[in-house]
């Protein structure tokens, strides 16, 4: 190979590597939603596509398996993600989904306002904030006020996401001045900062504390009762498999479904 040719190849290689790196920085949604192309008209069968808030991942996966067991021939496909981006893909018409379960009435309103829901959404669970501390609670945090101690590194969710709005609501009731080190982009990254011991405490949901196991310790605080987060669920207007979708929503609202959800740390509505 001649020298200029090799040089050109090398330049092309560097260019390709640069392209790769640039494309890698765009975020990607973690689960894919395969098209639910079934047209089951009579018996329950075919695929049910459920769009659900990320915090429902563990409990809904369990309920999905239960549903498939109760109705052989059905398959429940989930797409978990931030409620706002799920709502955007539903109103954008990009995704053929049957059910939408959101983490806040505000994100559900995006779908209902666009006329994409069938009927009125119902609240099926509520989520409460909790203080997540390091294992063993070495800083002896027992109230919201303790979080304002100097030298303590606290992370909150950004006000633009539901957990941050709830945190501001709870703090607003106390008139405490809490300056965090960071406003995180979602509840999981706020929790991660405590799990990695980079922050001393975070305001997250009870369900997140529970899911994190013994990597963090949860501390209840009374003000969280004023900032409960409602989770609405709704059947979608263009649901390809409305019958099975209704049955899934019924399962979520049933005593059995509520048991799974409260087991994960949710509160009954």
């Amino acid at each position, binding site marked *: 190979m001649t020298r200029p040719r090799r040089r050109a190849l090398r*330049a092309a290689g*560097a260019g390709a590597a640069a392209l790769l*790196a640039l494309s890698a*920085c765009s975020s990607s949604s973690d689960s894919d939603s395969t098209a639910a192309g079934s047209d089951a008209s009579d018996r329950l069968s075919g695929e049910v596509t459920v769009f659900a808030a990320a915090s429902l991942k563990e409990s809904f996966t369990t309920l999905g398996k239960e549903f498939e067991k109760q109705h052989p021939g059905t398959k429940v496909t989930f797409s978990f993600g931030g409620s706002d981006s799920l709502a955007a893909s539903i109103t954008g018409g990009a995704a053929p989904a049957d059910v939408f379960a959101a983490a806040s009435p505000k994100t559900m309103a995006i779908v209902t306002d666009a006329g994409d829901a069938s009927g009125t959404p119902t609240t099926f669970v509520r989520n409460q904030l909790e203080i997540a501390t390091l294992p063993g609670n070495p800083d002896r945090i027992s109230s919201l006020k303790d979080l304002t101690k100097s030298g303590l590194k606290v992370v909150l969710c950004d006000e633009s996401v539901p957990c941050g709005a709830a945190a501001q609501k709870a703090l607003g009731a106390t008139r405490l001045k809490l300056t965090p*080190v*960071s406003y995180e*982009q979602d509840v999981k990254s706020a929790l991660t900062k405590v799990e990695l*011991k980079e922050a001393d405490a975070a305001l997250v949901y009870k369900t997140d504390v529970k899911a994190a196991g013994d990597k963090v310790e949860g501390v209840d605080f009374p003000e969280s009762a004023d900032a409960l987060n409602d989770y609405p669920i709704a059947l979608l207007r263009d649901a390809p498999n409305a019958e099975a979708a209704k049955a899934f929503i019924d399962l979520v609202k049933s005593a059995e479904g509520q048991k799974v959800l409260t087991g994960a740390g949710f509160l009954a509505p």
Partner: protein
Amino acid sequence: MTETLKGGPRRGRLRKGTRGVPLPLLVPALAGLAFLVLPLIALLVRTPWRTLPDQLTSPEVWEALRLSLFCATAATALSLVIGVPLAWLLARTDFPGRRLVRALVTLPLVLPPVVGGVALLLALGRNGVVGQWLDSWFGITLPFTTAGVVLAETFVAMPFLVISVEGTLRAADPRYEEAATTLGASRFTAFRRVTLPLIAQGIAAGAVLAWARALGEFGATITFAGNFPGRTQTMPLAVYLALQNDPAAAIALSLVLLAVSIAVLVGLRDRWMTAS
């Protein structure tokens, strides 16, 4: 890139030859251009021009922009200080495992930036492999600080500089340096007086690339340094969070970032990258 930088005398000929562009090259070239420019045009089309002045006069926007420019510039400076010697090492010396080292240097290019941020936390965080000693010996903690933003951006942007400079070094004739050392210069003097002037344009090109990458950095920054206005909230972070509940504000912010980066890149290209 090395081709255009090195091929100074030949460029005049290339530039004139636009008459007979073969169709199999022209069509995909135009498609490529359209693909890159179309999203930017869409951004302009959907910009809420009427409310734009209100969006842009908020102090938060300028705070985020100032922080972005400062951090990207600092990250580029840091990349130059440690990246150029690294490129020289890779291009001009031979040591066992050099191929492996080069692969390691380019690793941050393929690593998802969020993973890079987590890795930085595990290394330099308060509880990290190295970070715990920084904390207990010097009282330095890097996460949630502006220094943390600079480090995260450097981690992601420096490989661009190293690759670019290494390519230029390999294309440059080593005999000039050899002549200098034969005439009695030390290897460092030869690097400083002969090599550096020889590859200045490659360094400039790499620095511009690294700066642009650092300016747009999101994943590693928010993971390692968090998000606090005025301290660690750079423009890409502000854009992302605005997108959650106010897409119009997000578009306005993107526009500012876009305008500033275009202005800087055009300015730098004219000054450094085309004069030869």
